[in-house]
């Protein structure tokens, strides 16, 4: 954790396999159509950021990927499997390979940090005995820089610490893909930058592919290899941060108004 990345991680190999492929995704809530035929590909090792205004359906998109919400139409292929067609047991198996960091961190508040981290291990029999569990907990707590918090309850942690522990709980199952829902929202700029640096560090260490949901262009600049702009339920355009910065599109320019 000593080496602080100055800018985003290395660009992904364009020929790398697609770990997530979304086609024609549609989702409505009553009469409100949030996603209207959204397309997206995530390649292995890539940090893809989905940028969009508040309420544009960014969180709905990643909740559809893990089927916390059921899509109305379209297809979602994750690691070669059609997620929308999986039964409950198969879905649970693929969910283990997808980490999800909630905006609220969603730590189990009746458990200590240690118990929060042990919970997914116990559920999936990943650790081989108490010693293995202990070493995995130690490993992820060290990776997020909070080894001293294991006996603390979530209510005793700051917002940034909760986000880090949430990330540790996500990583303890060694996921291939991580979905970040607004990872820096609600944090001060310093804590936000630390979270972004941590995301990059963990991507290098664990080789994860990520979709980062945010409306924060600072996060895009530091963490994203590629940015997809979600507008009116569709993938409006894709490109690197530099591509978007150089764009003459009036909608894209609106996002850079405070940069």
């Amino acid at each position, binding site marked *: 954790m000593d080496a602080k990345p100055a800018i985003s991680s290395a660009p992904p190999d364009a020929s790398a396999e697609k770990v997530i492929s979304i086609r024609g995704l549609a989702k409505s809530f009553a009469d409100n159509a949030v996603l209207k035929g959204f397309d997206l590909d995530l390649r292995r090792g890539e940090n893809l950021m989905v940028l969009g205004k508040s309420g544009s359906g960014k969180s709905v998109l990643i*909740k559809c990927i*893990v089927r*916390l919400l059921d899509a109305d139409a379209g297809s979602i292929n994750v690691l070669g499997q059609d997620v929308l067609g999986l039964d*409950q047991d198969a879905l*649970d*198996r693929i*969910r*283990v390979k*997808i980490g*999800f960091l*909630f905006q*609220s961190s*969603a*730590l*189990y*508040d009746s458990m200590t940090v240690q118990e929060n981290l042990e*919970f*997914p291990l116990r*559920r*999936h029999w990943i650790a081989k005995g108490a010693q293995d569990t202990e070493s995995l907990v130690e490993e992820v707590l060290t990776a997020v820089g909070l080894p001293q918090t294991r006996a603390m309850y979530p209510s005793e942690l700051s917002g940034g610490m909760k986000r880090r522990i949430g990330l540790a*709980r996500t990583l303890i*199952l060694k996921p291939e893909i991580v979905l970040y829902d607004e990872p820096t929202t609600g944090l001060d700029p310093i804590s936000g930058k630390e979270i972004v640096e941590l995301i990059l560090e963990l991507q290098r260490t664990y080789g994860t592919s990520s979709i980062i949901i945010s409306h924060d262009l600072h996060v895009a600049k530091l963490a994203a290899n590629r940015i997809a702009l979600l507008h009116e339920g569709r993938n409006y355009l894709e490109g690197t941060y530099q591509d978007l910065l150089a764009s003459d599109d009036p909608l894209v320019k609106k996002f850079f108004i405070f940069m």
Partner: protein
Amino acid sequence: MGWRIGFDAFVSEVGGIAHFTGRYFRNALYPRFEWGELLRQCSISGYRSLPLVAITAFIMGLVLTVQSRPTLARFGAESMLPAMVAISMVREIAPVITALICAGKIGSSMGAELGSMKVTEQIDAMEVSGTNPFRYLVVTRIWSTILTLPILVVLAMGISIWASWVGVNIKDAVSWDLFYRQVFESLEFSDFIPAFVKSYFFGLAIGVVGCYKGYHTLKGTEGVGQAAHSAVVVASLLIFILDLMAVQITDFLGIN
């Protein structure tokens, strides 16, 4: 059209609870059973409710004895006091009062706990980590109330009868042996069975309603309060409806 909206909401609520109960039965015996969580929930539902149930049962037994005594004395039937208290307690008062106490204590606790987990996305977090939250959180809680409520009811019966003996001894001196013999001479096995059987259904109602309300909480912290409150109201109402049905069934079968 206000009555129409209210009627639709009522039908929707009944349908929701029925569907939730069906989902519980489909998952109740799923092969990978959560034994550890079940034991923890039994401890919370049963062991931690025992003091409240015991105190209430003691007071009910004592009060019923003290208040019934003058009326029985007027007819020269004081010797019937142990039998009257025992039959009242075993058949009706202990099961219903224990169930109502548990609806208040356990039902509201389940509604608030699951509701809080719902609005803070903890249930979603469990689901995306590949753990089925319904089997882990709901099935174990409903099993715990089904298993512990009959035990609490039997303990409440025993404590209330003992409290009745204490009540009798406030003015008279009656030995425990005599009192105990009079109680069991008046009670029959058919008095225990309906009470015991309906306790399982009361436990099911408390667990299902508490979990249903918590699991479907909306509207943030306000919703958590509503979930806890309506869990108690709906579970209490269901207990009375089930009790009414139990009385009709036992009457029809000639068990009374």
